[in-house]
C-alpha cells in the first residue's frame, strides 16, 4: 500500500460539484486511470481517498489537496501523474503528485487557514474596494449572523489585499481566512461585510495552509 498526495486545480466543469460528489469523481478518475485504489475494510468497503478541506459549492480552486491510497508499492509519483494525465477528467488539473508516509497525520486535521481570491464578475471601483477593505481590517469586530448563528467575522480574517484590474481581469480581493475547527471564515461573508452582493463575485481558492 502506498499513499500519494495530489495537488490539483478544480476548474469550471466541476465548479458546481459538491464535496461528496468530488469524492465519487476521484474514485472514477482513479479507475479510469487504471490506478489500484485501496479500499477500507469492513462491511461496506470505501475507496481510501481523503480530501484536505471541503470547497464550497460554486468555488474554483487552484490548490486542492487529496491523499489517495493505492494497493501498490512500486509506483512512483511520476507514473501516477502520467496515468492521471493520460485519462484527463474534465474539471481536474493535476499540479503535483508526491508520495507521503503512511503514518503521517491526515491533512484534514492539520488545516489552519485558507486563501481565496474574489474576482468581480462586472468591473468595479478598485479604490472604493481598497478603502472598504482597510475599514474592515480596522474594525474591532464584525458581528454577523449566518444560518441563525451570531458570530464575529473579524478575528477570522487574517489578511486582505486588493489586486487592481488589468487587461485580463476585473479588480480582485485576496483574503486569508482562518480555517480551524469551529473558527472558519467564509469568503462570501467577507464580500458581504464589504457591502457587495456575494453573487457578484467569483471565488477561487488559491492556497490551503497547514500546521507543520
Amino acid at each position: 500500500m502506498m499513499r500519494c498526495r495530489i495537488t490539483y486545480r478544480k476548474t469550471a466543469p466541476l465548479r458546481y460539484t459538491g464535496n461528496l460528489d468530488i469524492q465519487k469523481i476521484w474514485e472514477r478518475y482513479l479507475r479510469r486511470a487504471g490506478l489500484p485504489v485501496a479500499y477500507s475494510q469492513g462491511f461496506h468497503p470505501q475507496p481510501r481517498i481523503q480530501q484536505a478541506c471541503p470547497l464550497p459549492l460554486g468555488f474554483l480552486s487552484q490548490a486542492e489537496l487529496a491523499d489517495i491510497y493505492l494497493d501498490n508499492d512500486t509506483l512512483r509519483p511520476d507514473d501516477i501523474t502520467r496515468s492521471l494525465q493520460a485519462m484527463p477528467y474534465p474539471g481536474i488539473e493535476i499540479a503535483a503528485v508526491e508520495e507521503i508516509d503512511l503514518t503521517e497525520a491526515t491533512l484534514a486535521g492539520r488545516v489552519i487557514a485558507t486563501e481565496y481570491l474574489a474576482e468581480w464578475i462586472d468591473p468595479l471601483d478598485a479604490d472604493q474596494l481598497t478603502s472598504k477593505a482597510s475599514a474592515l481590517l480596522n474594525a474591532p469586530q464584525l458581528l454577523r449572523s449566518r444560518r441563525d448563528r451570531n458570530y464575529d467575522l473579524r478575528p477570522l480574517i487574517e489578511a486582505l489585499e486588493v489586486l487592481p484590474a488589468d487587461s485580463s481581469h476585473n479588480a480582485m480581493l485576496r483574503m486569508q481566512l482562518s480555517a480551524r475547527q469551529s473558527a472558519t471564515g467564509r469568503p462570501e461573508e467577507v464580500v458581504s461585510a464589504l457591502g457587495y452582493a456575494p453573487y457578484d463575485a467569483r471565488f477561487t481558492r488559491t492556497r490551503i495552509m497547514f500546521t507543520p
Partner: protein
Amino acid sequence: MTFDHTMLQKQLERILPTVQKPGRYVGGELNQIVKDWDGVETHIALAFPDIYDLGLPNLGLAILYQTLNAREDVFAERVYSPWTDMELAMRKSSIPLYALESHRPIADFDILALTLPYETLYTNTLNLLDLAGIPLYAAHRSDQHPLVIAGGHACYNPEPMSAFIDAFAIGEGEEMIHDIVNAYQAWKRSGQPRATLLKALAHVSGLYVPALYEPDYHPDGTLRELRPLDPAAPRRITKRIVAKLPPPPTNFIVPSIDVVHNRVAVEIMRGCTRGCRFCHAGFINRPVRERPVEEILQAIQTALKQTGYEEVALLSLSSSDYTQIIDLVDQVSKHASENHLTISLPSLRIETFSIDLMDKLKSSRQGGFTLAPEAATDRMRATINKPIAAEQLLETARAIYSRGWSTIKLYFMIGHPSETLEDVRAIVDLCKAVIAEGRKIIGKRAVLHAGVSTFVPKPHTPFQWAPCDTQEQIQAKQQLLRSELRGPGLKMTWTSPKDTMLEAWLSRGDRRMAEVIYNAWQNGAKFDAWQDQYRYEIWQVAFEQAGIDPAFYTHRMRAEDEIFPWDHISPGVRKSFLLGEYRASQTQSFRSDCRESCFACGILPTFAELRRANPGKHWMCPEVPIRKKKAVLEPVAS
C-alpha cells in the same frame, strides 16, 4: 440570431449559486461531446422533459446521443426541465432554455427531439416548449422554429399530445432517427415551406405526422375514423424496429452530481415473450431480441474503461429469460469481484434460481430482494396471464430469507379487470404467509415490503377494452389493505388514486385531451410525475374548461368493435390478437411463453421481410410458416 455566450455565462454565474443542485444546469461532464456550432449542418436537442437527475441516465437518449454525434454533419446536445427554482430564476432574467453542451438557446436548433416514456411528462413538455420560446401548438410554428418530434413508450398513443408535436417516432429509434435527419436536411436545402417537411416526414416509415389527419367522432363521443388529409399520410403507421440490436452504447456521460442511476447500463435483451396481459412494454416491444454474451461483456469492459463507473446494470424486461443468463452472470461476476463492482440484475422471475443468480453476483443484501407477483389468487393470475403458484412464491421467499436477505419487496397491482375484494384480501394473506416464513427463519429481522400500485389499462394491450377502477373502488381496496396488511415486519406503500386517474386519462385519451393538457399547463400543472407537485384540482378544472367528462376515458367499458384513438398506430401486434387475449382473460385461459409456441400475435408477418433480410438466432420467435393472405387481410383500424 446572434448568440452572446459571455452574457449568458455572467447571468448564470449570478443565478446558479441561488438554486438547488446547480450542477444540473452546466453540462461539461465526462464524455460530453462538443462540436463547433458553425461547422455542423444540423443541430438536434435531445430532451427529457423532467429534471437532469432523471433524464441523464435515460438509456434511450444515450443511444440517440451516441449515434447522432457519430455523424459529422450532426451535433446532438441535451436539455432537461429546470426544477421550479431554476425556472423561476430563468424567467426572471429572461434566460431562454438552453442546451447543456453549447449553452445555445433551444430555439436555435433544427430539431427538438423529446422522449416521452410516460404520460405524466406531458405538461412538462409544454412547459419546456414555452421556456424555449417555441410555440406550443404545432400549427403555430413557422419555418424558423425547430421541428419538434417525440418518441418513447407513451407515443404509442400519440393523440393526447398530437396538437403539440410535429411528428411522432413510433418504435425503436436507432435507425429511424437517421431517416428523420436525412429528410430534414433534404428539406432544409430545398428551401421549401414547413408543410413540405411534414409531408416528407410522413413518408418515413414509423413516423406519424398528426397534422395530416383529422378525427371524426360518433355522437356518443367515440371515434368514427381518423381520416388522412393528404396522400402522403399512411392510414396506418407501423412501428420501426431494428432486426438485430446494434452494439450498445459505452461512452456514457458521467454526471458530476448524483443522479438516480449512476452506472453503466447494458440492455441484454429487448422485448418479452411472457405475454402478461396488463403489460404495455410486453406488447409494444415484441419481438424478443437478445444480444450475444460476448458483445455484452465487451460493452461492459469498454464502458467501465471510459466512465470509471463502479456499478453495472444488466437491463431487460425479464432477465431470467435471457437464454445465456448463467454464462453471462458467471462471466460478469468474475470481473466484478476483482474490481469492486456492483452488478444489478432487475426483473427476475419468482423461482429459487433467481437467488442463485444474485448469489453469483455477490449482490448486496442491503436493498432487499424484489419480486413482482402482481396478483395473489389463481383466478387473478390466470386473468393477467402471470402464473405463479403460491407455493413457489413461498419457497422462493424462504430461500431469500435463509440466504442472507432480511427484506423482501413484493410488487402487486390492484384494479385488474374483474378483481374482487376477495382477490385483494388474498394479497394480505399471501404477504402474511411470506412474513411468517421470514420470521421462522430469521426472526424479527424479517421485513416484507408490499408495493401495491393500481392498474391502468393501456393501449395496445388485451385490457385496452377494460374500464379502470373508479377512485371509490380503489379507495375501498386500499382501505382493506391498509387495515389488514399490518403486523410486525410488514410495510406497505400504495399509489394515490388521484395519481392513477391522471395516468388513466392521459393513457387512453384522444385528440380532445390536448385542450385539457393545455388548460392544465396554463393553470400551473407541471412535474405531474412528482407527488409533491401534482395537483388533481388543476386537472379537474382543466377538464371542466374543455367541457369534457374525464370518466369517458377512464371508467367506460369499450365495445369490442370500438375504434380506438390509437388504432392507426401499430406495434406489429394485431388488434384481433389482443381481443382474443382479452377474451382468454375472461375465461382465465393461460398462454405460455411464446418462444415455445407461436400464438400468432402478428409480429412475424409484420416484420417477415426484415427477419428474412437479417437471419440469425438473436430473434427469439420460433420459426413459423406464414400464411401469406393473413397479413393482407388484417383489418385496418379506420
